[in-house]
């Protein structure tokens, strides 16, 4: 069994980045200074991922204020709406207002990413929202029904993914928090599953890259069989929300499994040996094609220093696992 590790979301900002942004916001600094700091920090975090042998390297997303921002700001036919909480975090996003149907278009994430600093050999990963999550967190008008809307959004996301692959990206992670949050709240129904199914049927397979559907902030346990059936190469599960014994009830023999066992929303550091033992037990019981250790989400919620600490943990546990 091969064990690997990688980051799965936006990295915590450095104090220097906060300071230049704050100065710019108050009219005492420039946007050029912000961009320079973002580039510098991005290069540093990409290099750090290399040094601790992460299997996929990500842009730390310092240009993003939220996952939906590039879509909301760059896609024709979309406007920026009201502020809402990003799930149960003291962090906010602005709802995209989608006036559909949208024309097919791509390239909307490139302005936010540092593709020139990522490797072009297939080991770089870019994170996009899943079509279902994007639709559910947006205000949608102009479509006859939600199935039509998710189809349109999935087509655009697929084009975007394919465009990123042409730039050398080797893996696309679709973030899917909404489905598992609804599951946890008891509001999930068969239409939700059908909508995600439809979306992933369209964008789940990307020529020249592997794909992952990464769920977080909710309990995936009761819907793991459905998630396994989706046409993606890897399934990501939040181990800070989903019981390990629920995860181990299933067989993932034709899937990669990414387990978010490191809590990105806590400064508490997990015991490396304990996490390694848990992963070994999962590998033995569930036979995934590959088993990845990840944080459950981006480390942005606890800042730069604690992000580095979680990154070091990924390295340490990976070494234990591959001894």
């Amino acid at each position, binding site marked *: 069994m091969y064990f690997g590790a990688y980051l799965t979301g936006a990295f915590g900002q450095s*104090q220097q980045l906060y300071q230049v942004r*704050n100065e710019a916001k108050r009219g005492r600094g420039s946007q050029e200074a912000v961009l320079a700091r973002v580039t510098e920090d991005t290069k540093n975090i990409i290099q750090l991922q290399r040094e601790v042998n992460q299997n996929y390297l990500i842009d730390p997303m310092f240009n993003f*204020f939220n996952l939906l921002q590039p879509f909301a700001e760059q896609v024709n036919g979309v406007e920026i709406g009201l502020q809402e909480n990003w799930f*149960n975090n003291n962090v906010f996003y602005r709802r995209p207002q989608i006036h559909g149907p949208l024309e097919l278009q791509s390239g909307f994430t490139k302005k936010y990413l540092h593709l020139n600093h990522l490797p072009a050999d297939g080991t770089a990963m870019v994170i996009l929202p899943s079509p279902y999550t994007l639709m559910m967190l947006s205000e949608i008008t102009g479509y006859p029904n939600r199935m039509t809307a998710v189809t349109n959004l999935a087509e655009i996301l697929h084009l975007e993914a394919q465009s990123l692959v042409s730039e050398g990206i080797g893996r696309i992670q679709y973030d899917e928090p909404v489905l598992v949050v609804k599951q*946890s709240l008891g509001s999930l129904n068969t239409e939700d599953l059908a909508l995600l199914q439809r979306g992933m049927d369209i964008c789940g397979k990307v020529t020249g890259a592997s794909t992952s559907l990464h769920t977080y902030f909710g309990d995936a346990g009761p819907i793991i069989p459905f998630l396994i059936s989706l046409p993606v190469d890897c399934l990501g599960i939040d181990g800070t929300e989903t019981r390990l014994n629920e995860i181990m009830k299933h067989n993932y023999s034709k899937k990669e499994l990414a387990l978010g066992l490191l809590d990105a929303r*806590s400064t508490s550091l997990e015991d490396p040996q304990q996490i390694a033992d848990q992963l070994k037990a999962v590998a033995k019981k569930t036979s995934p094609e590959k088993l990845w250790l990840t944080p459950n989400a981006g480390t942005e919620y606890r800042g*730069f220093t604690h992000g580095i600490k979680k990154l070091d943990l990924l390295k340490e546990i990976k070494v234990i696992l591959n001894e």
Partner: protein
Amino acid sequence: MNRNCGNKLFPVYEVGSLPKLNLRVRAARAESVTDQEIAEVQNLAQKLSIETNEVTEILKHQQAEPRKFNLQEDSALADFNALFYLKLQEAAGLDFVYDGEARRAEMYRHVARKVAGFEDLPEMIRSRGPDSWRMSACVGPLSLKENSLHSLIIQEFDFVKKHATKPLKVPLDDPYMIAVMSDNRYYLESLRTEYKKDPRKLRYEAKRAFTLALAEKVIRPQVEAVVERGATWVQLDIPAATLDLEHIPIMVEGVNAVVEGITGSKFSLHLCYPRRVSLAEKQGYQLLFPAILDLNQSVNHISLELANADQYENDLAVFAEYKEQRCFEIGLGVTDITLEQQQKGTLENAETIRDRILRASKVIGDPSLIYVAPDCGLRQLKLDRCLKMYQSIVEGAELARRG
């Protein structure tokens, strides 16, 4: 009719904060205050009959030699700022007043920095766009740092009480709000073994333990102190009440732990920005029910952000629906306090506010349950906008009284 206000319908209050005076902000950065800033404050103070000689002398001295204020100067400026805002609110016609939180740096930090068992994270955590906050991590058992109660609340309250001519409403942080904005390392690690097989239960129980410890050790001592000194209305601020839909019972339990057994004061909650995209069957303030039916009976008033969405009928319907089981007074948010509105230069006029009050009264079915306020504290806004807002609200409430 509303308690504390005789027979007056639709009493008006401020939710909490006003912006820091520019000259205090500037001096904190060791920048010279301007003649214009000094003149503006002098003019306003003169209208309010507030003595400015000492403050003017400090400001002139700082202007000649730009630097941060020393402790004595800072204290004099804080007193002046507090008195200034208290008198502004009284002069504007508010029925319940306080000091615009003039002594508090910011609602979370004001308390977090005085808690033993907290340590700051190294970096600011991003929250809204580039806006960030300094998160503290709970790393040990909680208590208030030695002698901190005085600077936390007693000095502030005693000063306001001494100078006020109208009834006070004292805004304080709620324990759940502090828990939500902090990192809960200590309680997660303390309970990890007990709940090792159920991570969701671990998160719930750790947050509950954290919230209750904050209630007992950090917030309740402040409430006891002000009530002992004569406070008759304490407001607990919980902007994050509906943030985690599965944890709302913890919020209720935290409030109850703060107020249980304390007599002589009215208690209220201030809630804002409810989850309108909840992903649950319910949304907005519906999410609070039925959990808030279990609030201690002494909590009889809930202040709500409503103008931002302007969906008074929808937002308030749930309070009417449950009125037979639990009847809350409503602090009706009638003005949108967001920066977007300030940037657009738009502000609700008295007629709009009157209409909102009457719409709300119709939904709730009893006008005597309605108080009137801005959506939230005004810390982010410019002072002249705050004054115009007060004027609109007071006039709007008067129009509503006439029907």
